[in-house]
Each structure stands twice: as C-alpha cells, then as structure tokens.
C-alpha cells in the first residue's frame, strides 16, 4: 500500500540557512510514524515543511497531491491537521470557539464533531465557555488535538505533545491519540523527544540529527538498537 505521506529529498530553509539537508520520510496509511532526535535536529522543521510554513524544496506527496507549491491554508484543506509546537491555541478565544475554528474547512455544522470531541475529552466539555488561555498545559494540549481532529483529518501532525506536561497526563494523551487513530483510521506523524514512550506506540521511526535522517526502520527495531538505546533512551 502506498504511504499516505511521502517526503523525498526535502530541504528546508530558515532565511538563507539550510536546516534540512534532503530527508526521506514515509507515513503508512493508518499508521503512526515518529520522528526522534535531539533539540534542534530539525524535527519540527520537517513538520513545518509539510505544512508549507517554511521555505522548502523537494517532493512532498500526500495522497496523490503534491504539496510543494501550495500555501498552508490549502494544505490544511486537503486534510492535514497540524498540532504545532507550543500547541498554538487561540488563547483569547473560548474552548468552544477554538473547536469551531478547527472545523472551519468543513461544510455543514460542526455540532456532531464537537460532541464527539467532548466525549473524548470530557474536561473540554466542562470548560467549553472558558478562555483557552485559562486552561492548564495538559488541557490546552487536549484542546489543540481536539481542534485538529475537528476537521476529520486524514493525517495528523503532532509536534511534541508531551512538552511541559506531567508524565501521567502525557500517557493519557498518548493513549487517547492511539485510540483515535484506531477508531478513525487517522494516520499520525509524531515528533517527540520522549523517545521511549513514542516508540511504544509508533509503527515506524526515523532518527534525525542536524538535518539528516541517520536511522530509520520499524519502531521495534529502533527500540532494540543498542546505539539508539544508549543515545536516546538512556540505557
């Protein structure tokens, strides 16, 4: 089966500096792929390259669509939902308004999707009329994921969902993402620094170091690899 997302020889630039030096990544349909690596390796940049938020070169193919020349809004409309680093919630708007915005690209009322999100994240239902900025870190992360899911995406890009969150909260979020992936057959591309947890849930993994893919394979293979265990898993 062809992968739902494929990056071939993709380079990304911040201004004049080349940050990604030609990477190849594939995400299987319905699977979860994780990008691992240290700070500044280029993982977030890879997600930004997919969404068109940074200048990029190379081939990016999503479900038979070429993403290269498209703007970020067009890419979102194709069915790619990006939960950015730092969550990117609209802190001045209420929880409900944030969710409504998630469904901006969908025709029809967002009511059904919103009820589904409230079922997955009951805490959001409780706080639906509160300003998003007043939510805790974990709640904001849930809101960000819920907002992304409101558009019933085919591909979900998750950037460091564990950032700044307590371990228990992180585990519950990962479990939820896994459940959603299975129930709705959403493909997930995950960027994480918390390698051990990510490798538990993912199918495939890529290891990125200063803009190059240095290792790739199934998640289990990378988890068992002694080199990676020493460098990134701490044992």
């Amino acid at each position, binding site marked *: 089966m062809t992968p739902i997302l494929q990056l071939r020889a993709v380079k990304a630039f911040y201004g004049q500096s080349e940050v990604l030096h030609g990477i190849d990544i594939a995400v299987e349909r319905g699977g979860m792929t994780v990008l691992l690596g240290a700070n500044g390796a280029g993982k977030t940049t890879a997600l930004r390259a997919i969404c068109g938020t940074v200048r990029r070169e190379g081939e990016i193919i999503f479900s038979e669509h070429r993403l290269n020349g498209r*703007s970020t809004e067009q890419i979102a409309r194709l069915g790619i939902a*990006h939960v950015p680093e730092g969550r990117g919630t609209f802190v001045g708007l209420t929880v409900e308004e944030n969710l*409504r915005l998630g469904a*901006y690209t969908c025709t029809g009322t967002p009511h059904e999707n919103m009820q589904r999100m409230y079922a997955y994240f009951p805490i959001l239902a409780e706080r639906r009329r509160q300003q998003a900025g007043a939510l805790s870190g974990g709640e904001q992360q849930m809101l960000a994921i819920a907002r992304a899911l409101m558009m019933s995406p085919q591909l979900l890009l998750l950037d460091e969902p564990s950032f700044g969150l307590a371990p228990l909260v992180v585990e519950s979020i990962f479990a939820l993402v896994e459940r959603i992936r299975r129930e709705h057959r959403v493909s997930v591309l995950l960027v994480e620094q918390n390698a051990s947890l990510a490798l538990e849930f993912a199918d495939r993994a890529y290891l990125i170091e200063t803009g190059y893919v240095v290792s790739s394979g199934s998640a289990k293979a990378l988890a068992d690899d002694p080199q990676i265990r020493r460098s990134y898993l701490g044992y």
Partner: protein
Amino acid sequence: MHQLLQQIFSGLAAGAIYASLALALVMIYRATNLVNFAQGEMAMFSTYIAWTLVNAGLPFWGAFLITLAVSFLGGMAIERIVIRPVENAPILAAVVVTIGLLLIFNSLAGWIYSYTLQEFPSPFPDRPLFGALMTTRDIGVIAVTLVVLAVLFCFFRFTTTGLAMRAAAQNPESARLCGIHVGRMLAIGWGLAAAIGAVAGIMVAPALFLDPNMMSGVLLYAFTGALLGGITSPVGAVIGGLIVGVTENLVGTYLIASQLKFTVALILIILVLLFRPNGLFGTAIVRRV
C-alpha cells in the same frame, strides 16, 4: 447644570463619531499592528462619494448604503493592492505607506471636488429636545453609531467569518493551520474599517461641512480615543472616543478658548495614560523571554 448636561450630550454626539473612527483604527491595528494614518482621508473620500450620490438624486439612506458597500470594497482593494507589498516589511514602511495614502486621498479629493466647503444634508432634522438639552440630530448620530456597533458585534461574535477574523488577528500562524485564508481576513478587516469610517464621515459632515480637510481633526481625536481606551480593545475604542468627545467639549466650554482646547484635552488624557500606560481597557503587551 443645564449647560453642563447640554455640553455632555453634544460631547457624546461628537464622541460617537470619534468612537466610530477609533473603532476602525483599532480593527486595523489588531490585525496588522499598524496605525492607519489614512483612515480619516478614506472616510472623507467616502463622504464625497455619498455627496455625489445624493446630489444625483438618490434618497439619503440609499446613498448611505451604496457608499458603505463601495467603501467596503474600496477598503479591501486598498489592503490587497497598496498595503500587501509592505506587509512583511518593517512597520515604519507600512506607516509611511499610510501617510502617502493620506496625501493621495486628500489631494485627489481636492482635485476632483475642489476645496470649497460644501453643504451635506443630514437625515435628521435639527430640532431641540427636552428643553434644548440635546437635538434630534445628536440623538440620530448616536443611534446610527449604536446600530453600526451592534451589527459589528454580532458579526464578530456570531458568524464564522467573524470568528475567523478574530483568530487571524490573534494568531495568524494557527489560523492558517485551520485553513483560514489570513490575507483574505485582513482584506475584509480593512473593508469593514473603511465602511465604519464612511459612517463616521457621513455623520459628521452636516456639522463640519464637507471639504477635503474635514476629517483631519476628527482623526486626531479618534486616535486619542483609541489609545485612551486601549489600542487593542474595540470596546475601549468606543468608550475612549466618547470620553474624548465629552472632554473636548467640556474643556472648550469651561477651561479655555477653542484654540488650545485640543492641547489641553490631550494633556489631560496623557495624564490618565500615565496611570494606565496601555489604555483603560488595553492589555499589556506581555513579553516572553
């Protein structure tokens, strides 16, 4: 006492106009971090369009609505054509572009319509009410302003486009990720601001008489009102505009002759701002290191 109330009411009527223009300034500032120096001249030009339509025989409110529509489209066009090239440039470049626009509109109006003062009809008869406490014209101006504000409030609070515009102004990056076309939202914002400015111009023209320099004073008051209320707060813009209108009137009546009245009012307002340097309702710019 009677005179005080009278001055307060006529101050509120003037303040309603400042509030409208202040709201236009705040809308554009929230979306683009830019103070549109040309807002007054754009409003003046719209008023001339309304004047032309009325002189051609259209009924007042018909001309009013057509002018609003034309101003909306014009504002959108200006954002796309004139402002778009400098949207990623340093903010000073955009400021200079608005100053250039100011000159262009002022000069064009003078060229097309000449600099002689023109009379502009008011839809409200100028009759005193409640024992000369206020006039029907003042009530009319305040009422129109309130209607415009109510329409805007409903637009931003209850429609999807309004929500998208608020989102695009707050966080353009995330808005794009939701599929919102931020450029289009900016253009709509400019269009709305231009339409609101047109309302302000049409409401003030009967009193000030129509000429290309009609709005320059109004713009200064509106700018002051917007900042007094907090440049990031639409509610603040309205309240700030009203306060400026009343203050200007009271200062002019009780403190000092008309020449220095704006200076004194401005100094009073700056003293207030010293205690609240982000305006009465403005939010502080939180800086994260």
